[in-house]
């Protein structure tokens, strides 16, 4: 089985008072090992809602999501953190680093959540930061890092503990062109070398060059 993530006829309706908003409408897709899937579309098309459901952060209103062979749709809220911890790495548009932690400690957070022992924590976090080219900035706090460096720390954090699936939400939106390209290159390289499945939500047209497959969303639906 090559599909690490299956999204089957998934829909999401938000209720705002008496009004129901259909954010995602009957979307089906799959994510394979070693693949970078790019989800594109205009603002409000439902890309981020879809990504949230794919990452078990948001419950779908209808349909099912299968992660690494397990149907997670019916899982209770309290069981989802364990699925996220084991299966996913996240890269966010605004980096979302912990301001009181150094670059290395930001990576350590995930390792600690995953129960790594103390001896491996330092070694592993330094190795990951080395991989993303921040070997000499491990002791820096986020406020002392550039946007590109922050996103690399977030990228290293997403790789911590080797999750099989990486989900990235607009990873280049707050970066200049050079840094944006570098992040996309790293995502693709990581997918191809380590066999991880990567889903990227982006507006950035240059992201297409780094994707194995591109899907477009509009009004909550996948466009042919």
């Amino acid at each position, binding site marked *: 089985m090559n599909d690490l993530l299956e999204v089957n006829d998934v829909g999401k309706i938000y209720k705002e008072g008496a009004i129901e908003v259909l954010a995602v409408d009957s979307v089906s897709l799959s994510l394979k090992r070693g693949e970078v899937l790019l989800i594109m579309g205009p603002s409000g098309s439902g890309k981020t809602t879809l990504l*949230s459901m794919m990452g078990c*952060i948001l419950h779908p209103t209808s349909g099912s999501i299968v992660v690494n062979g397990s149907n997670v749709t019916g899982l209770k809220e*309290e069981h989802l*953190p*364990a699925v996220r911890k084991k299966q996913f790495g996240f890269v966010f548009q605004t980096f979302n680093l912990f*301001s009181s932690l150094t670059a290395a400690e930001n990576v350590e*957070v995930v390792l*600690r959540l995953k129960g790594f022992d103390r001896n491996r924590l330092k070694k592993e976090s330094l190795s990951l930061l080395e991989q993303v080219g921040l070997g000499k900035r491990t002791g820096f706090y986020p406020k002392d890092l550039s946007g590109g460096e922050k996103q690399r720390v977030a990228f290293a954090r997403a790789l911590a503990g080797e999750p099989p699936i990486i989900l990235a939400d607009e990873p280049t939106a707050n970066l200049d062109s050079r840094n944006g390209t570098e992040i996309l290159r790293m995502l693709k390289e990581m997918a191809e070398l380590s066999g991880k499945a990567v889903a990227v939500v982006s507006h950035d047209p240059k992201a297409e060059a780094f994707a194995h497959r591109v899907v477009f969303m509009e009004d909550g639906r996948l466009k042919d």
Partner: protein
Amino acid sequence: MLWLALKTLFHEKVRLFITVIGITVSTVLAITQIGMYFGFMGDATAIIRHTDADIFIVSKNVPNVDFAKPFPEERANRVKAFSDLLWVEKIVLTWGFLKLANGGQEQVQIIGFNPDTGIGKPWRMSAGMAYDVKGGRYMILDKTSESRLGGLVTGSVWELNEKRFRLVGLSDGIKSFTTSPLVFMSYNSAQSLVGNEGQTSFIVAKVKDKERLKSIVRDLQAMMKENDVYTRNGFIYKTVMYWTVQTGMGMAFFLTALLGLMVGGAIVGQTIYANTMEHLKEYGTLKALGADNMDIDIIIFSQTGISAVIGYVTGGAITLLSQNSLEKAGVTIYLSPLILSVLFVMVLLTCLFSAYFSIRKVRRLDPVMVFRG
């Protein structure tokens, strides 16, 4: 997640400082108030606690030990008729005016005791002996009243109710709740000083068998309708309840202490909540990365708990260091390991409770917010 809690807590030193200051002030206020309350109650019951008697017989409706009213001392003979008692003794408690060297005068509380048996004598002496009051107009004053009475030198002569008394000894740290200086003298001297010959304030007795104490008190009460008969603990309770409840003074202390705890709790709650709101996105990220509610609880509760411990230790240390100075100024503060432990638990619980709103906020936080730029 204790690691993350510590990192975040100590990274923001100004916020930690403000939190700790709040808890420290609250702790000082609470410990001082409670310590003062127990100190005052200790003073109020000192005479009862330090008289080695099991039974106190007083005039009807006397509300506390300091407000004793005289009654015929011959009633002691009726008490002595009880074969269950080891001994029976009388103590006089009255008031007088002591003339000072500067021409002024000070109202004093006088305790008259039998120097032969020593029942009712001063229990801590720094000069002379309690027995020295026997056989004449001799008295013992307490060292703590020196600032009000002037230099206390044994052998010096003082005028008490226009009668001359020689100072033969000094007691140490014996204070009354009324704050009037205490004067100890012989039973007979105290009686004649105020012209109350044949009158006493207390009949006190020791039982042979403590198991029978309650039934003896019942029997005595049945026999002595004109008096109230208390066990030692009963009289302590009566006195404490009078000052605490009937005068409302004890409640004032407790309310101030409670106010201190509430102010501390509010400060902690506010700073922790502000901190939580400021780091809401980080909590959301943590949840998205796989942290469950238990992890979040550990972070917030441990940050609050650590702040509470630092604040309490600082506040406790400040109070203990200033205790001596306060006592020199005439304020009795009684602190014991039990009182300090109970107050620590109360401060900790107040702080943890104040963190509840932060916990609730983060528990309800939807991790989807991490995808919103």
